[in-house]
């Protein structure tokens, strides 16, 4: 079904009907000028502020996305302010494996530590790791993907071959090796996760570049001698920007899950540092007697990851211009 908006948009496409000749000028009334002011038109096609506002408005209307946003904001607050409000997570209290009480809202663990404090610090650690990983892998991924997508040819083949090989290698092998190299702990975890995550980002960025490169308005810009760097910056990157933002949001969630998995397996964060994954692994044997040891960190992880995933989904929907 063509809605009027569609028709107008289609008419605005520079690549639209393409027929210039006797009789096609009936379209001209809404361009309104006899010659095309190319830079002006290109700016309008680019990442105009209204596109952002449009997407934001769409995002706001998406209830699940807003819920995700709320979750993340809440958890960020917990991560930032929480540590000031709770006890030191390594303090040992006299009563171990105690059920949730007024004094210890989340109870205590098998060593007597306050679970609430550990969960708060765990959330902070997860979010920090998530962000760090996302930033590092995004930068690597964007750079590699852009070079690959823009220049194509040999460098493209080389880089993509490399990505293929890396993708085939069992993830845990890489993890073990890097951890043996860097020692266990936060740094190793971040590096491991980042080095495996950039692959997907690179692929998506490359795909975005390849698609946009072919569009006619880029040809038009090139034909007018707009320097390459400017083309990339103003015309291509904005189009690639959308999937990147989505990937980053989802990537943070995935990184948090990854850290939890590594810690759970014993090769991530080491005790006594508070990692949610570690807490879950340690709590398994006590489940029948102290289920809260699993529940609280478990819920914390799920909510954190959920928040970022929902934001990612919401962003994807918000940027999707194809309406019915």
């Amino acid at each position, binding site marked *: 079904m063509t809605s009027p908006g569609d028709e107008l948009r289609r008419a605005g496409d520079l690549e639209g009907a393409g027929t210039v000749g006797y009789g096609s000028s009936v379209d001209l009334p809404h361009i309104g000028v006899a010659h095309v002011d190319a830079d002006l038109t290109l700016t309008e096609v680019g990442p105009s502020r209204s596109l952002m506002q449009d997407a934001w408005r769409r995002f706001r209307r998406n209830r699940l996305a807003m819920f995700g946003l709320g979750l993340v904001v809440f958890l960020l607050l917990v991560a930032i302010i929480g540590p000031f409000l709770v006890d030191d997570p390594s303090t040992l209290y006299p009563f171990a494996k105690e059920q949730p009480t007024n004094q210890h809202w989340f109870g205590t663990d098998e060593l007597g530590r306050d679970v609430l404090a550990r969960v708060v610090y765990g959330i902070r650690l997860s979010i920090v790791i998530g962000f760090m990983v996302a930033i590092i892998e995004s930068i690597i991924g964007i750079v590699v993907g852009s070079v690959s997508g823009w220049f194509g040819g040999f460098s493209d083949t080389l880089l993509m071959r490399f990505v293929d090989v890396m*993708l085939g290698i*069992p993830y845990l092998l890489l993890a073990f090796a890097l951890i043996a190299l860097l020692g266990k702990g936060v740094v190793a975890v971040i590096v491991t996760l980042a080095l495996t995550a950039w692959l997907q980002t690179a692929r998506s960025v490359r795909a975005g570049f390849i698609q946009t490169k072919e569009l006619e308005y880029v040809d038009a810009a090139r034909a007018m001698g707009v320097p390459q760097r400017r083309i990339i910056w103003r015309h291509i990157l904005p189009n690639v920007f959308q999937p990147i933002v989505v990937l980053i949001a989802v990537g943070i969630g995935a990184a948090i*899950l990854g850290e939890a998995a590594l810690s759970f397996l014993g090769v991530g964060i080491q005790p006594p540092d508070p990692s949610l994954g570690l807490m*879950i692994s340690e709590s*398994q044997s006590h489940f029948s007697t102290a289920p809260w040891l699993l529940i609280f960190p*478990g819920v914390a992880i*799920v909510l954190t990851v*959920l928040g970022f995933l929902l934001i990612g989904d919401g962003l994807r929907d918000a940027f999707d211009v194809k309406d*019915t």
Partner: protein
Amino acid sequence: MTTFLIRRFGQLMFTLLAGYTLLFLLFFALPGDPARKLAGGEGRAAPPAVVENIRVKYGLDKPIYEQYLVRLKETVTLSGRSFKTQESVRDMVAERLPNSLRLATWAIIIESCVGISLGVLSARRRGSVSDAATTIGAALAGAIPVFILAFLIRQVTGVYAFKHDWPEILRFPPLGIGPDEWYLGIIPSLAQLEYLIQPAIVLASVSTAIVARLTRTTMLEAGSSDHVRTARAKGLNSRTVVTRHTLRNALIPVVTFIGIDFGTLVGFAVLTETVFNWPGIGSKVAQAAAASDFPVMLSLSMVVMLVYGLANLAVDLSYAKLDPRIRFAGAK
């Protein structure tokens, strides 16, 4: 067509070689002496004579490039033996690979049926309660770590059910793999099914969410496409329009995803296999890496990479069958 196949196969071989090299270097780039590790593990001081013995025994004293070639030959012919247990790699693969294949197959079956149905339903009832429920469910499935899900399921059906005397049907034996009874190599006997079903469901969970969401998106896209409008304008009844025009087109990306996922699930289901003690190839690789069991680590990783590469290749080939536009390279 055949040239395409040959070329892709060659690329796969090259990728495998590159992967092998990377792994080999990784192992040797690690700090610490592998011989000493094998002698007694870290921390335990083993007498130098023992360490030397081990070094010679495993050929770790030879120059690197020689080791590279030796291991390469060993890997390709699957003739290695575990440093730790002397078990032949070939036996290991013969035992473990089928297990992983079966687990992955059933996970794929679950994720396809459930995921696609949910996605189609979601798309048809866009905006309704069931749509929202599916979206939330999909998000949750992606957010719950596999090990938590696995643990909870085990607790409920394995321990809880026994403790509280639930009816027989709901009780599943907690861990491992059942009796080796399979029809056609793939269909489990009922006894085996009890062991298989939990890890299969857990393994399928994340992918199901992705498939559901992907199907929903592609169905919505296809549904609003021009050719569906044409199909309706021709007077076709809605069932035909949905199956022959919407679904047929929408499933193309979904099927490719599932194909690649199969390759991933076979070799990379480490967490699930570990939690459920399912003797698959992924968990064995992880074990070997942790124990510095070099030959096992190398050979099994190569097998995993091979399976992954073949799955991707199969997907590429099938893509041409699914989407006629791809068959003619360069045709506009």
